[in-house]
């Protein structure tokens, strides 16, 4: 081991002699077609990465327009109906085309088989199929946008969406339906891979926590998404034939729609956060050179979140006319589901204790996650508390809550993960200083954008408003200013990561000195991942094992 202790764990090979591996999954086959027809999980992950980035910036552009419009109280930039389309498409694109597939479909796809010591996913072709479904869905969504957009809100509330709007609701619903199947297949693939493809010695409690988190998220995808699918089918049929399953004038119950919708969409928010929590565990352990504090608690809390996540959906409907008795039950369960998240946060915090902590970019994003997700999650508790929800629901408080958990939480985790595994995926390092700058910029921009929205929310500013009373302007201006900073912060990684593809330092197989199986193979990995199937003979996050291994390698080579 090197003698001097620096402030970083990054250990790159000597750049003057270092070389990229000759045969990697990237150059194994050439040509566009070899990518489009690939069954290699790593290539599919890259395809996903490119597509979701594309959709993130589309959604981001909508966000930019939303914030610009809200600069002034009057609807002067865009008319009200355009504004409605903006936030609808912002929500749909961000949720179904960015955040749900973000970590699982990119990092998960790339890493899951490697972390398990397998050569590929259980069903490589279905893996590719889910990417194609995603692309078809995305194309449909884009065409719906180009043809004039949708203005239902991402929640498709009936009977508004079924009988009162004449925008491209059916196209958008079909797009989400298809994207849903993409996500279902993704989930099935993950679960089967985790159950069936673990290498010898890879027991459940030796799996990295990233796997546990993705496993829990996959359960949610498989069990929840079909309900969304059937709901959208019913909405589409109701629109097409004018039937009344959800329309009260025809005898339907609009609340039934909401029950079915939120039965999926609440678990969906955990689909959106759990994989990010997986990233957290990996990065925090690596950057503090220490096994995760209470591995089992963290692993089981993922599963607990997934399980309890199915019992709380009605908290989105507290004032919508559900029975108050049932609201009581769901409010209680909401409080229970918040606990496992707290466990995780504290376990991560205590992982730092007695560690040997370094502050690389992924770690900075993780710190961002810890702070912002805690705020976001605790404001979720406001909303779960019945009486409080009456005042806060449908205001900017909600908007702030979910951006704190989704953007402050998941997006931060996603960026942490992208930076962390970038050397593994591409073989090259990103520029550290610039990336630290981006991490700090996004943190500041984020708080400036969304903290004022909590205050706005308590003052009563309703969400989905194109125009608002003038007394809310100051805070809105702050928020828009923050969004500009934030947008800049998100542009940066996009630019320097692209740059690093060619000019980044060669990373070597284990720049972070991390313990995961993925770090024991070359970067970028070869197509078949492992020359021979590994045997897992140590716990996850076993830094002593790693030190031993490194020592042995040195002696044999030297």
């Amino acid at each position: 081991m090197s003698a001097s202790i620096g402030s970083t764990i990054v250990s790159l090979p000597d750049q003057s002699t270092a070389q990229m591996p000759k045969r990697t999954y990237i150059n194994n086959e050439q040509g566009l077609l070899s990518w489009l027809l690939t069954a290699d999980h790593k290539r599919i992950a890259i395809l996903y990465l490119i597509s979701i980035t594309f959709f993130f910036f589309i959604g981001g552009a909508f966000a930019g327009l939303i914030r610009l419009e809200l600069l002034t109280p009057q609807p002067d930039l865009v008319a009200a109906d355009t504004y409605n389309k903006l936030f609808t498409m912002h929500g749909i694109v961000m949720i179904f085309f960015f955040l749900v597939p973000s970590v699982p479909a990119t990092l998960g796809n790339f890493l899951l088989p490697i972390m398990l010591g397998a050569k590929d996913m259980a069903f490589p072709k279905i893996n590719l199929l889910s990417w194609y479904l995603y692309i078809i869905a995305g194309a449909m969504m884009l065409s719906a946008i180009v043809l004039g957009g949708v203005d239902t809100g991402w929640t498709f509330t009936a009977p508004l969406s079924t009988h009162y709007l004449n925008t491209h609701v059916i196209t958008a619903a079909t797009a989400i339906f298809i994207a849903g199947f993409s996500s279902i297949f993704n989930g099935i693939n993950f679960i089967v891979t985790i159950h069936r493809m673990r290498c010898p010695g890879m027991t459940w409690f030796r799996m990295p926590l990233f796997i546990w988190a993705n496993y829990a998220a996959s359960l949610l995808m498989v069990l929840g998404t079909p309900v969304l699918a059937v709901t959208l089918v019913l909405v589409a049929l109701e629109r097409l034939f004018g039937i009344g399953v959800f329309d009260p004038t025809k005898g339907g119950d609009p609340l039934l729609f909401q029950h079915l919708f939120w039965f999926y969409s609440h678990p969906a928010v955990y689909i959106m956060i759990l994989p990010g929590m997986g990233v957290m565990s990996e990065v925090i352990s690596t950057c503090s050179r220490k096994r995760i504090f209470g591995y089992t608690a963290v692993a089981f809390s993922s599963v607990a979140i997934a399980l309890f996540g199915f019992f709380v959906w009605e908290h989105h409907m507290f004032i919508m006319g559900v029975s108050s008795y049932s609201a009581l039950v769901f409010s209680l369960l909401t409080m229970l589901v918040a606990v496992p998240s707290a466990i995780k946060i504290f376990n991560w915090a205590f992982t730092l204790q007695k560690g040997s902590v370094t502050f690389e970019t992924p770690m900075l994003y993780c710190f961002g996650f810890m702070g912002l997700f805690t705020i976001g999650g605790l404001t979720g508790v406001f909303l779960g508390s019945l009486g409080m929800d009456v005042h806060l629901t449908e205001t900017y408080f909600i908007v702030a809550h979910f951006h704190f958990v989704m953007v402050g939480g998941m997006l931060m985790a996603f960026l942490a993960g992208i930076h962390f595994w970038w050397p593994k995926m591409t073989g090259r390092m990103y520029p550290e200083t610039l990336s630290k700058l981006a991490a700090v910029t996004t943190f500041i921009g984020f708080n400036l954008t969304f903290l004022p929205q909590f205050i706005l929310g308590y003052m009563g500013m309703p969400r989905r408003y194109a125009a608002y009373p003038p007394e809310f302007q100051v805070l809105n201006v702050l928020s828009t200013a923050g969004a500009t900073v934030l947008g800049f912060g998100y542009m940066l990684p996009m630019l320097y990561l692209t740059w690093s593809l060619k000019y980044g330092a060669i990373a070597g197989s284990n720049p972070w000195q991390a313990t995961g199986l993925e770090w024991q193979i070359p970067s970028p990995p070869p197509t078949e991942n492992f020359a021979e199937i590994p045997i897992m003979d140590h716990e996850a996050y076993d830094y002593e094992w790693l030190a031993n291994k490194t020592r042995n390698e040195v002696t044999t080579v030297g």
Partner: protein
Amino acid sequence: MGLSPVLWQFLVNWLHNASLFPAEASTIAPYTDALYFFLVLMTIFGTTLVAVLVVVFSVRYRRQRNPVATQIEGSTLLEATWTIIPLAIFLVAYVWGALLYFRIFNPPTNAMNIYIVGKQWMWKAEHPGGQHEINALHVPVGQPVQLTLISQDVFHSFSVPDFRIKREAIPGRYTTVWFEATKPGSYRIFCTQYCGTQHSGMVGWVTALTPADYKTWLEQSTSGESLAQNGERLFASMGCNSCHNGTAAARGPDLAGVYGSKLTLTDGRQLLVDDAYLRDAILNPSQHVTAGYAPIMPTYQGQLSEDGLIDLVEFIKNMQSNYRVQQTLVTAESGEAAPTTPPQGKGER
């Protein structure tokens, strides 16, 4: 709550004047704010705790100071601590929130009732005295007011942030919420449930008046006929009185005094007659047929607007005897032109 009133007033007013806080203008508001401050404190506490842990550990155990990490399995005791403490705090939030919820939705018995009809994209308020308002609501201070809400098309949500109340206006069903304004003044009404293009235009004002001012307002803006009187006319013109006239030969049940009573249905169920039931009985009569009667009452779905229904409901609610019904029957038979209902609801949007 806990806090001294002076300090409370100071805090709240200061925040309000800094445009960081809504006015506290109803009896509910202080209760909501108390819970809010509790939750804010919880958030500050939790976030600070996490931040302190992260910062202290990062500084204390950074690589330069602590080159070699000590591997720790975990600690059941610590984990139990941070399971139980947040759980306890969350449970307090739960109980407190539930109590507040029931406070918000349980009206006092002496509340006066005002009907609110939401439609794309306006609020119509109908006072029992027949005063109609659009995107405005006049109420007296110091008097509990119950709102009975319904929507004519999609979901809307009636929100008055300064009162800390909000309630969904649902198509096809009455919902209620109540408040008691404490300070005269004007307060914003928002529609907070996304309801289509002009959702952000569905706003208005609640004007809280002193009881004296309110009385003058009532007198000045009356349309001449109360809701019940409108309902009486409708009752005659829609032909309700041909069956519901309280005579021995009547084909329908006697409606006098039916409001608030318990009905037994043909399938044995017992139901309390409230606003929602009356409305439903007119629109979907065959879904709950009163014991002893044949399901012959026609449905009035599509023939009555929500306003018309409110008139009828208000009329039936206040119907103490069948005297006037029988009177109208006589006048109707005498060939006098029956008043017509304005065709609303369907065509209008």
